[in-house]
């Protein structure tokens, strides 16, 4: 009886995953592996080797790699600080980091466009203070900046989560046994936080790799990422077959990073947001 009820409760999720995950995925594979006349072909997928597409894939991999590394370097100390704060303001501090995520991602990126422009808010202030102006809008640096800004919380929260769960007795034991702060960090804290780091990396790297909005808005459409190429195949060139074929290639990279996560984060600790 209870079993039946539980099954009934899961029905919406079954519909959800069939309608919004499985069917779209099947459609991507259908379009990706056929040509306009409906014949089976691998040419859409192999088209990734064309210089136009390959270059955009390499740039996307490069930019998302750089932003993931910077995100990690910024997030780890931050997560440690957050995890060690004992006062009542802890909740507030976390809220401050999560708050921007409640605003629409597009709006925030659009706002950065206005802020970073040559005659934008930031440069006006810098000019007023007689400081050198920032010339990063419409360059790859602006894209990296946008990626870091947008995806930083996705790195902070999983690391914060695992750090909170580390038993203080372990740290005390390490100190009792003569380890200094640095040794404790490298021998105890860091290894224990690997699941959080890995899931943080996936949660930053995957959306950064596939983004097309950030490069459009902050890169002035001068830099094509693989996400832009796919978007344009669907919207401008109405070539769904090529767009899907390239998406399949992109999926391979996503699956690789998901498998890495699964290997390192067996208990799903880091992903508990």
């Amino acid at each position: 009886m209870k079993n039946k009820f539980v099954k009934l409760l899961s029905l919406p999720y079954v519909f959800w995953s069939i309608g919004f995950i499985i069917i779209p995925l099947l459609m991507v594979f259908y379009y990706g592996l056929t040509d306009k006349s409906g014949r089976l072909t691998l040419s859409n997928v192999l088209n990734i080797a064309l210089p136009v597409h390959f270059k955009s894939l390499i740039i996307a991999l490069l930019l998302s790699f750089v932003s993931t590394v910077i995100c990690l370097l910024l997030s780890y100390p931050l997560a440690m600080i957050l995890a060690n704060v004992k006062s009542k303001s802890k909740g507030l501090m976390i809220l401050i980091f999560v708050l921007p995520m409640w605003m629409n991602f597009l709006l925030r990126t659009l706002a950065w466009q206005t802020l970073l422009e040559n005659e934008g808010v930031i440069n006006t202030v810098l000019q007023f203070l007689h400081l050198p102006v920032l010339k990063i809008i419409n360059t790859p640096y602006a894209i990296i900046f946008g990626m870091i800004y947008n995806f930083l919380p996705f790195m902070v929260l999983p690391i914060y989560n695992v750090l909170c769960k580390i038993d203080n007795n372990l740290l005390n034991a390490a100190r009792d046994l003569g380890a200094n702060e640095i040794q404790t960090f490298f021998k105890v804290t860091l290894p224990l936080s690997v699941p959080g780091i890995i899931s943080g990396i996936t949660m930053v790297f995957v959306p950064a790799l596939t983004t097309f909005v950030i490069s459009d808005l902050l890169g002035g459409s001068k830099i094509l990422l693989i996400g832009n190429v796919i978007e344009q195949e669907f919207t401008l060139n109405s070539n769904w077959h090529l767009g899907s074929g390239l998406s399949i290639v992109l999926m391979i990279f996503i699956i690789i990073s998901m498998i890495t996560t699964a290997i390192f984060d067996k208990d799903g600790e880091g992903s508990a947001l």
Partner: protein
Amino acid sequence: MKKLFLFGLLATLCMVPMFGCSNAYENGKVYVYNWGEYIDPEVIESFEKEYKIKVVYDEYETNEVMYPKVAAGAVNYDVVCPSDYMIKKMIDNDMLAELDWNNIPNAKNIGQQYFDTSKEFDAENKYSVPYCWGTVGILYNKTMVDEPITKWEQLWDPKYKNQILMQNSVRDAFMVALKLNGYSMNTTNLDELQIAKNSLLEQKPLVQAYVVDQVRDKMIGNEAAIGVIYSGEAIYTQRENSNLVYVIPEEGTNVWIDSWVVLKNAQNKENAEKFINYMCEPEIALKNFDFITYSTPNDAARALIEDEDIRNSEIAFPDLTQYNNLETYIYLGEDGDELYNSLWKEVKSE
């Protein structure tokens, strides 16, 4: 089971508006798909009130974005406002419905010359009613350039590095490069297109950004010195920033018409024609002109413009007979489209 679920969901969604406002819009709906910021919102409201027809209004940024959405039929739009070459493409693909001119008596307000020009893409004037027209030209900030800009060639001048805004739409970008090299903007000759592509590649390091609607705001905000822009934006931008000057380049440029069309699979054809007819009323066309500042082909509306400077403005209503190298875009066929798109992708990805 799944179908049933979806049906239930749809039924619920349909009930909401039925309960809400079944009295206010007794004459049904009309689905309109138009360019971004291409109508005075008050006009939609007054149409809804007058005809008791609910207007469901969506916007697009380029013809190329609009076409696949309409072709896929995801939303059953009734009225769309594509440009010349796109109308031809839609006619060729049997997507448009013939208009019943008896239902659009206000079409008489549209100048005959615009219907004549329309024949280039709508041979018998069966499908389209001109809504706006204009040219593509250069908008520049006279305080930021050394000499007046008069030619496309100056968009390749290295001293304006990072001061140039190009159009991020394939036909407009290639039009500039083709005209620069003295070719037709409708060429499908591979050699000519390769030369144009190389020109665009050569220009790319000088370009600040490839944008569509944002040219306007960036030029007003002194963000760039030179921008490729539609003539309709010129009056508005000059109103906001008096340093801006619009020119039709010497090498020639594109002259375009955006026209209302009704889709073949329109569910509300009668309402669609009512909507188009309403848009052709002189007072309404004038209201739209004041708001969007794109040249109106509606002669009756133009006569109503109070400001003489604007009524006789060279920008809004240029005398096209004094230019001999203006062209309209022609639909290039699927192969032509593909060729342009792939070359454009090469430019963008470099």
